[in-house]
């Protein structure tokens, strides 16, 4: 049996941004892709959601200070 990592309580939500969303994000931040924080393509969660190098992943976490916080990473 294979366990879905995303079902684990400590693993936050990971989603792949669509091309439009990714462009929008980079435009808002005013930076190039390379200036984003990175995540390895071999990372288990990246493998699970099927993201490829060059994709941007949106991570929605629970936060002690803000309740909910959003983070983006570039798959490398």
């Amino acid at each position, binding site marked *: 049996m294979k366990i879905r990592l995303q079902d684990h309580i400590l693993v936050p939500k990971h989603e792949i941004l669509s091309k439009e969303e990714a462009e929008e994000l980079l435009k808002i*931040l005013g930076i190039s892709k390379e*200036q984003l924080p990175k995540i390895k393509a071999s990372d288990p969660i990246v493998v699970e959601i099927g993201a490829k190098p060059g994709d941007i992943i949106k991570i929605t976490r629970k936060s002690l*200070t803000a309740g909910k916080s959003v983070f983006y990473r570039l798959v490398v």
Partner: protein
Amino acid sequence: MIPKRLAAIKFEVLSPQEIRRMSVAKIVTPETYDDDGFPIEGGLMDTRLGVIDPGLKCKTCGGKAGECPGHFGHIELAAPVIHVGYAKLIARLLNGTCRECGRILMKDERRDKFVEEIRKRIAMNQNYDDIIKEVFRLTKAAKKCPHCGAEQVEIKFDKPTFYYEGEHRLTPKDVRERLEKIPNEDLPAFGIDPKIARPEWFVLTVLPVPPVTVRPSIILETGQRSEDDLTHKLVDIIRINQRFLENREAGAPPQILEDLWELLQYHITTYLDNEVSGIPPARHRSGRPLKTLAQRLKGKEGRFRKSLSGKRVNFSARTVISPDPAISISEVGVPKEIAEELTVPIFVTPRNIEIAREFILRSEHPKANYIVRPDGKRIRVIESNKEELAEKLEPGWIVERQLMDGDIVLFNRQPSLHRMSIMAHYVRVLPYKTFRLNPAVCPPYNADFDGDEMNLHVPQTLEAQAEAKILMAVQEHILSPRFGGPIIGGIHDHISGLYLLTRGNKKFSREETIQLLRALDVSEVPVKDEYTGKEIFSYILPKITLEFKAEVCQGCEFCKGENCEYDAYVVIRNGQLLKGTIDEKAVGAFKGVIIDEIIRKYGKEEAKKFIDRMTQLAIRVITSVGFTIGIDDIEIPKEAEEQIEEVIRNAEKKVDELIKAYKEGNLEPMPGRSLEETLEMNIMRELGKARDQAGKIAGRFLGDENPAVIMAVSGARGSMLNLTQMAACIGQQSVRGERIVRGYTYSNRTLPHFKPGDLGSKARGFVRSSYKKGLSPIEFFFHAAGGREGLVDTAVRTSQSGYLQRRMINALQDLKVEYDGTVREQTSGVLVQYRFGEDGVDPAKSYRGKAVDVKRILKEIIEEVKQYGE
């Protein structure tokens, strides 16, 4: 001058050719000066290497001392010598390459794979140490050369610079020959770029001689020359080098040559690094170890931390600090002597030229010290030239006038651990020799007056002054970003004073009241015959409405609120203190809810004014009421002593019973604990309980009017535990959280006064005496053991946290919170956080760490609604 920008810095290894190429002189003789004191040609002080004596000219560039930057020379070594800095890398290379053909001990395809991997990592700006480590590991393990088939013998590296192949020792010459054989194509796999460094260059054949300007000799008072440590070391090297040459030419036996070679290696090793493990450091005649090249760079006193990261500044002053409760928290008292030395520039314009002229013409305190002409020339203003200078003064000149009242300065106390360690204060020029500061700003600086010194800096441009006033002023730092509460507030006597003023319903006559309030700018004090302390405090209070439990609150099970019988529930309505006692909770630094409320409702300026008035009122109250403490204030009556004695005796009896039960095997172990642990915990609890009880008894007899008790309950200074220890019982001493057990291990006892294996309270560090009564010698010994742990802990903690802080600052120094709330690295623009702290809240503007103070908002809305309703 044309400004230039460095694009990159690259470090390379000097090749022998490069060393000779940059050399202006071959150094051949160990002599430095001739009999007339002139530098000898071909010696270490050769004038081609630059000059340090005034009057002499450099033979290379013609410059005089101070103009000539100095030039490198070189020494041709009679035999190759290992460079200690590369010794370990040499060992790895010898083990990683074939002893016959010099090729890497790995097939070409494999090598290319590693090289490619390294290239990728470099392109991504990532660390590739792990790959190189893997290459060295694999090649070292190889038994046979894949290229020529030669058997490999492991080379043992003997620190610091020796290599053995089995029993046979490799000379540096052998080593160099082997390294020469390594082809360029194999080097990248070892992380070496052959254009930058050839491995044979790690074995020196020619040694660069640094310019004399790098190692200047100093002339002692006796007129004798004293050479730099580096020069001494170079003399040693040349001397041995010459001896080696002479011996070899004379055909000396190989044993002698080998010894000389080893000596040469020793001198060159210690010349490069005099703290290498495995060999004794080279010493000066006096026995002091020499400071050679590595020592010049390394550590806190080295070139990096002392000379490059650390800077010395002008326009600064340092002296001892002392308190002055009469000045504002935003002021600093500056001794007149210092004020006369430090200056503020006046940039002369048509509009201020008259003012500037006046300063030049003055001959007393706020006068001009210097004027600076537009050409940069600096002229000291003295009695004889002041009229002439005032006459010549024109817009565009700068007049440096002495520091005076109202100037803005930065005030700092080390260690500067947080931003409140440097704040901007306004100058008050005062007599005497110490910096004066209001005791209310001691907490942010963590200062006290037991000899602490502080630094003061005068900003030298209008921009810097404006920035200091707007960003660094004391009132900007009342709320700490550490916990979102006030870090500036009342301490010690401020708290005792207000406690004495506001506790209960104390009455003050009109005269007394006026005495208390006269120095404060309070308006509209109604004329009455009698005032309560609470009324007097209300006169300095802005219009705030607040309810909270005071520090003196007993924590009753059911709080009666306004009707608290201890006067511990504070009620302030519309700026009137109606109920409760003002103490640490209300106005103290770190707690101060009143300060908190004022700053949120009326802003920083008002909060500053309140702190100024509050501290001054408190000091006036405490001086007029009178407050003191002496040894008799912790005296308790015989009756109390007997009760305490009884409590302790009972506890000791219980401990004895526990031990008896343990020895007879009747003790029930607690879940998850061994029998011994259970016993220890029970004993500790029993004795702790006894001490607390003793403290309660003592507290009861000391009474609420006792000054020590007042200080403890109001939060001014000290705790009830301190009082317990002074008056009743010091209690159990501990080391590492356990009763004291160590001592004579072989007989299992702490001191020879006890029987082996004694587990009783006395034998394991319970101190039943009080500080006032005094400790018995045995108790004193245990107390010293416990006290020592505390001292060691603080010493270790400060050094560890200091190092941690250094590393954190290094890691975080380039991060900045941008206007869009993101955190970015400043040079690369890399994003670190999408929202600062995930919630984007500035903790200094938060409410005790929370983003919004919902309660406060509700309260304000309710009040507003009420007003509308009326």
